[in-house]
């Protein structure tokens, strides 16, 4: 007889765990330990993501609003054609799980047109960072959702309704863009679950289902041309659950709140993937355990023939997991191994097992030994020069997961479920790896990180630093930002944390404006070396001020090329640019963040004079070109285009 057969059973084990996690969360929040608090909250919500739990989490956060100084504030405005207020608990809660302090501006339902069209509306007055336009298909294409059969009488009319709907959205979004630089997330349309012609939908003329599909395709295409606009794949989200498991018709008619309350946190998660990417928090690296994660069983005990990997269950589920990881690799997520094993056993699997999808060359770093996993993660972070907060650690062993959580609370930990068929979902469901752009650099990233590991070992061999620089045979290609490099430029401003003097995050809109302004110098830097092409790894933005000063606004280099004197070349380039413009002075600020320690001494090291502040605080530096200029090291070959 199971426990559930006793109605008066005392406290369930999950309830006890939930109480423990709530205590941990409250205590760590009170003492200002933000990372452990976030870890506890993630575990709590993974255990039980019920309506009451989200409600409790939100209240717990709100009550300590003043203490949340470690979180990034993000203002979200929600415009909707239905009541979406009930998403607030889970949206604020999920923001917290992601290190964001979300505040919400909620417009009344169906006020979205007035809010966008009226330049002095509350929407604009609130200066949101992100606006969500959650409007149902029936608002954009009323005739398609209501009165379809009348429409169908005339050939072509259905398409006209689709086009009119698209024009309507586009006009609103463009009006919005004229008034605000905020990012905007636009819902696509959910198809009807009960088309007017039932099973015959689409057999005679353009069906309702197909029409909604065209609308959604058109929406993606049109939003692509609006900087900072993105489409929330609402239809796909609903299809994950099915319309009947998503909607609550009772609440739709009673409170104009059609989405089931216990599903809303999934919609919040969808928004969160965008918000996280906008904040430069997309995870860059996944560190994988091997035994019972990449394959079933333990290689050291079960041997090559004993581990489970191949066409039959459970081996088939592990193959599927490896394929999902390989897709991440293709997407530009760096792969690494952290396994407690004897290296020869592991090599045997990689070299000899017929069903290994992942090969050794897919991994940029490997830590295979018996030391703690936290140590492995630290080593990987160091050798790849990646921040621990950009790492996802995947392991089946709860003790290893706990060890990493407590030692390295900034690492995202995914414990793969016991049933291997659930592992892909566990890895992908939260969208940790979702970014806002996908460029050639992303495709090539893994090769680049392998190069970096190669370059690191060369550094160890080389006698002097200068010899090392020369041996790299580096070429630095500099070019003005153009339409092809725009996406990468924006991505770098959003993602670069370490060698970034000011850490100013920019959108495509911001950069595009500057591209059209002659006062601005916008440069991208591409670095090639004997190991290959690193792609575009640096951005410099400077503005000529009226008084004859070239002001450096943004100066950043990807961590891939830190420690290679590229920054010296860029400063030399700025000197050239200033001279060409007849400007005698270069000035710039250093805004310290927790991460940009490698950037702080750059001006000092290159002979700039400190005008205010010091290396530990916000500081301003200047260089008088009549007295001194920065020379480019002779081991760097500069190519301008």
């Amino acid at each position, binding site marked *: 007889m199971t426990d559930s057969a006793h109605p008066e059973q005392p406290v369930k084990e999950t309830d006890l765990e939930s109480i423990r996690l709530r205590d941990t969360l409250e205590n760590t929040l009170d003492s200002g330990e933000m990372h452990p608090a976030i870890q506890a909250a993630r575990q709590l919500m993974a255990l039980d993501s*019920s309506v009451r739990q989200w*409600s409790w989490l939100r209240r717990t956060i709100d009550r300590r609003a003043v203490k949340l100084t470690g979180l990034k504030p993000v203002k979200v405005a929600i415009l909707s054609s239905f009541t979406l207020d009930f998403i607030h608990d889970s949206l604020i809660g999920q923001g917290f799980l992601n290190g964001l302090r979300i505040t919400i501006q909620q417009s009344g339902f169906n006020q979205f047109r007035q809010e966008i069209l009226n330049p002095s509306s509350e929407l604009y007055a609130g200066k949101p960072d992100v606006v969500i336009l959650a409007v149902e298909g029936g608002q954009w294409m009323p005739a398609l959702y209501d009165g379809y059969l009348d429409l169908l009488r005339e050939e072509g009319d259905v398409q006209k309704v689709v086009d009119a709907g698209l024009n309507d959205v586009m006009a609103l979004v463009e009006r919005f863009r004229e008034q605000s630089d905020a990012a905007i997330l636009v819902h696509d349309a959910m198809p009807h679950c009960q088309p007017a012609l039932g099973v015959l939908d689409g057999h005679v003329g353009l069906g309702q289902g197909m029409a909604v599909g065209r609308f959604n395709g058109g929406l993606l295409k049109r939003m692509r041309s609006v900087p900072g606009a993105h489409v929330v794949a609402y239809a796909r989200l609903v299809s994950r659950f099915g319309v009947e498991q998503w909607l609550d018709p*009772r609440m739709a008619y009673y409170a104009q709140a059609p989405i089931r*309350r216990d599903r809303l946190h999934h919609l919040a998660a969808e928004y969160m993937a965008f918000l996280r990417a906008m904040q430069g928090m997309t995870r860059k690296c996944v560190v994988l355990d091997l035994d019972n994660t990449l394959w079933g069983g333990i290689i050291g005990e079960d041997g090559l023939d004993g581990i489970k990997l191949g066409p039959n269950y459970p081996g088939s589920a592990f193959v599927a997991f490896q394929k999902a990881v390989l897709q991440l690799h293709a997407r530009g997520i760096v792969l690494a191994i952290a396994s407690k094993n004897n290296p020869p056993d592991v090599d045997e699997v990689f070299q000899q097992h017929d069903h290994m999808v992942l090969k050794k060359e897919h991994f940029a770093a490997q830590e295979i030994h018996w030391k703690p996993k936290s140590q492995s993660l630290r080593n990987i972070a160091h050798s790849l020069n990646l921040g621990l907060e950009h790492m996802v650690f995947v392991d089946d062993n709860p003790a290893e997961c706990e060890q990493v959580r407590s030692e390295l609370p900034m690492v995202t930990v995914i414990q793969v479920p016991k049933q291997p068929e659930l592992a892909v979902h566990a890895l992908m469901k939260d969208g940790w790896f979702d970014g806002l752009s996908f460029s050639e650099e992303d495709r090539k990233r893994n090769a680049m990180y392998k190069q970096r590991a190669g370059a690191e070992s060369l550094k160890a061999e080389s006698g002097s630093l200068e010899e090392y620089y020369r041996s790299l045979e580096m070429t630095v290609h500099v070019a003005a930002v153009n339409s092809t490099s725009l996406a990468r430029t924006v991505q770098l401003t959003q993602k670069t944390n370490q060698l970034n003097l000011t850490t100013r995050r920019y959108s495509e809109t911001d950069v595009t404006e500057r591209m059209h302004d002659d006062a601005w110098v916008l440069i991208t830097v591409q670095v090639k070396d004997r190991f290959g092409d690193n792609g575009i790894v640096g951005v410099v933005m400077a503005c000529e001020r009226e008084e004859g000063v070239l002001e450096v606004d943004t100066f950043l280099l990807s961590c891939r090329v830190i420690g290679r004197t590229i920054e010296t070349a860029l400063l030399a380039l700025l000197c050239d640019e200033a001279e060409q413009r007849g400007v005698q002075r270069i000035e710039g600020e250093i805004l310290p963040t927790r991460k940009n320690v490698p950037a702080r001494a750059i001006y000092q090291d290159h002979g700039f004079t400190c005008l205010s502040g010091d290396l530990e605080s916000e500081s301003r530096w200047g260089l008088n070109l009549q007295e001194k200029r920065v020379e480019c090291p002779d081991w760097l070959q500069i190519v301008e285009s």
Partner: protein
Amino acid sequence: MEEQIKAIMADVLDLETAAIDDATAMDSVDTWDSYNHLTICLALEQEFSVTLEVEEMEEMISYYDMLRILQEKI
């Protein structure tokens, strides 16, 4: 059931469970607005795997009424 209902009310309304009794009602608790009211109702549905009629939700305006209506349903 009593403890579960109180726990949900405590979470949503920011109350101590010990402070909740039969007299705890919508018109006597500041945080018990219509938004939180629907949150409690839907959390109760989830907790007890029941579906409430809209009329029942409108009747459940105190701890006593919640307990009474849920006991009838389960």
